[in-house]
């Protein structure tokens, strides 16, 4: 589950992403990052094929302090949907999906 200390932050980030106040970038396949000059937030999807469990993970890296903290939520936990939502909006932001979809509709 999402630790309490991160819950408000996650909700705020989802809201800011929906409002297009922040722009995510793809850092590799199934992982997205949000950068400031001092820190990076990463959200990613990971499947443990051996255990047949999927995870969404959240990481916070502070460059100057070298802080590396985060958590992961598996598909059996309550907060999985929240993380799935965060991952979806991050992916949509990274792909600039709003413009893409408008363009698609325009091309129809």
């Amino acid at each position: 589950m999402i630790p309490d200390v991160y819950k408000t932050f996650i909700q705020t980030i989802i809201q800011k992403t929906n409002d297009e106040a922040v722009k995510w970038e793809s850092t590799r396949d199934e992982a997205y990052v949000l950068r400031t000059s001092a820190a990076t937030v990463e959200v990613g999807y990971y499947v443990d094929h051996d255990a047949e469990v999927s995870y969404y993970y959240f990481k916070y890296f502070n460059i100057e302090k070298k802080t590396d903290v985060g958590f992961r939520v598996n598909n059996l936990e309550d907060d999985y949907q929240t993380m799935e939502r965060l991952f979806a909006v991050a992916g949509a932001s990274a792909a600039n999906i709003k413009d893409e979809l408008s363009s698609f509709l325009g091309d129809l």
Partner: protein
Amino acid sequence: MKKIDFKNIDYRLIYIGYFIVTVTVTLFLSYTYKLSDQPKDTISLIANASELFGLSVALTEIFILSRLTDRIRKSIESLQSYSDISNISIFLSQTKDDLIRNKYGKAILRLEKVRDVYQENLPPIELSNTTSIHRKNYDTLNSMISTLTMAEQGSSSISKKDLNEFVTFLTSFNEIITSLKLTFKNSIL
């Protein structure tokens, strides 16, 4: 017409200019204000002019030595960075082997070392710039470490797709490291 290479001219030639200026100023002052009517005044004037000339030379030497010391210090720092960055290339190659052999613990340790050395040898502004290639590489290294740590904790293997992606990144990252090495090498020379 042959161009003059100013970099290879001995800076001490400037002292000829100092000497000419000192003598000219001394003669000018001597004739204008009658400073050398008596032999002892002449001796005093020559002594003062010599002192002025000596002081100018000494200050110039101090200035040149100070610049030289700075340049040596920067070269030593570049040499240290060159040495550190050279080790990264070796680590990257070993990390690829670790990943292929599923030795994630070793790969994590090497990647953490690579990340830290990379960070220490970059100007801080490169990492604080959210669009720089170095910041993207730094984040990708952290992302790889996160994924490998999860695989290590779960005693599972990373997917073939992740493995290919990591190996491809390490190969392209090595090219950037080679470019950085050249930058440090040039600054040493």
